């Protein structure tokens, strides 16, 4: 069976690097929020995470350093990816932000089918999808926009106690708010992303391609028909 190349080694690296950073940053970040009106799951969570590093505010201070170090590494990782594979990054951005007619209908019907069934999602063929389907595009858009918001607000928080004058205090407050919002919304999408990729049987070949770099041609035809069509017109195998 013919297989089509889907990801470069650098694509695969940045995906899993991003995933590892997200896991560490999310956990350490949850340990940094400790406020009765804010605790997403109650005070036990920051208390438990702080206990791993000595407990109390001193444990929180360790988490803060960890969060800052991983956050900076996360940004450096993306800069390295851009340096190595700017072409891939450009292709990715072009693809995720080009929404075609029919994509919205694909998304709504697909969500209906997968959660409730044909009653909500209807029967019949869904509009053909490109290199990414509309669900992947929506999550990628949220990740890019959210990621930028997280990095920018995170930079303000990182520099707050090192560089920013008292006059910048309101900026820091808003950076906290934006950081929380962006992480929360991307995390909501992340739940679906992890389910679709790793748990649902539908995208198994796509999941495997995040290790091997390629997908079987018939899977690609089913799931990303427009991509395969375009490949046929250009030089097959390249993206």
């Amino acid at each position, binding site marked *: *069976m013919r297989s089509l190349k889907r990801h470069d080694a650098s694509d695969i690296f940045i995906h899993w690097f991003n995933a590892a950073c997200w896991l560490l940053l999310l956990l350490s970040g949850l340990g*940094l*929020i*400790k*406020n*009765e*009106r*804010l605790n*997403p799951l109650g005070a036990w969570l*920051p208390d438990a995470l702080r206990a791993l590093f000595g407990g109390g*505010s*001193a444990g*929180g*201070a360790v988490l*803060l350093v960890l969060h800052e170090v991983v956050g900076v590494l996360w940004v450096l990782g993306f800069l390295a990816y851009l340096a190595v594979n700017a072409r891939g990054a450009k292709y990715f951005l072009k693809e995720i932000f080009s929404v075609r007619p029919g994509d919205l209908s694909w998304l709504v019907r697909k*969500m209906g*089918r*997968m*959660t*409730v*069934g044909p009653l909500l*999602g209807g*029967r*019949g*063929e869904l509009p053909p999808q490109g290199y990414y389907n509309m669900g992947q595009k929506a999550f990628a858009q949220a990740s890019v926009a959210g990621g930028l918001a997280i990095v920018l607000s995170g930079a303000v*928080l990182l520099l*707050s*106690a*090192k*560089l*920013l*004058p*008292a006059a910048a*205090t*309101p900026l*820091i*407050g*808003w950076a*906290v*708010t934006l950081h*929380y*919002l962006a992480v*929360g919304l991307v*995390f*909501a999408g992340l*739940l*679906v992303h992890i*389910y679709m990729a790793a*748990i*649902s*049987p*539908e995208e*198994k*070949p796509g999941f495997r391609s995040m290790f091997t770099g390629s997908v*079987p*041609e*018939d*899977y690609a*035809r*089913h799931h990303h028909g427009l991509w395969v069509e375009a490949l046929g017109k250009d030089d097959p195998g390249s993206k």
Partner: protein
Amino acid sequence: MSTQKLAMVIDSAKCIDCKGCMAACKQANGVSRGVWRNWIKEAMPPLENGPAGSKKLGHGHFQPGACMHCDEPSCIQACPTGATYKSAADGTVVIDPKLCIGCGNCIKACPYGARFRDPVKRIADKCNYCPERRAAGLAPACVDTCPTKARVFGDINDPGSDAAKLLAANQGKVVRVIAKGPGKNWDTKPNMYYLASTAPDGWAVQPVDPLSFDFLTAVVAPAVKWAVGLSGLGVLAMLGRQLLAGAGGAHGPGGSADGADKDAKEDHHA
């Protein structure tokens, strides 16, 4: 071991506005230029002799103060990271400088203006009852230096302490400065007690949150909970369908060789 409750009992009538406490605090704690951890407020009329010929003496009244290490501190409710907290050991309101990110929420949340953003450390700062001096068995610098002994410091949970004895001797005559609004009190249960009476009063202000924090707690945090909740529900619904449908889906391992078959395509995602 019973826990301590460190407090200050102040006879403000004894204060002569010498500013010794303010200078000693600055010196002992290396407080940055332009900011102060403690203060002396002045009541009208100012301290001066009465007008010539008048039998009435003019009299002033001075009120030393600092962070009141409240029992229900509004500053702690405003801190997003728990960098400021109530010490379980001695009841003081502590700032952990390593966890404070300088967001400034606590500054406006204090009804007493006791907190400020340190221009050098760039984080919140305030009176901490001189922990280094206490560890060495000394009273806080402001208390030690006070020439009239207007400030009395101690553990009011220990009936033998000077502060507790003074409080007991003045039972029923002790007042606290509390923020008052129209028909409303913002009593943060301050642990700074003034004997008999004190002035000025009414200078404490309503604790307020910055708009960014109000927006975060009232709008953003619930919105994120809803988004994550809905997304989680969606995943559960998909997982439920997946498990109910069993492994019979067309996309089981190796089950996708039927690419051109339109019927299979239709039923793929059903």
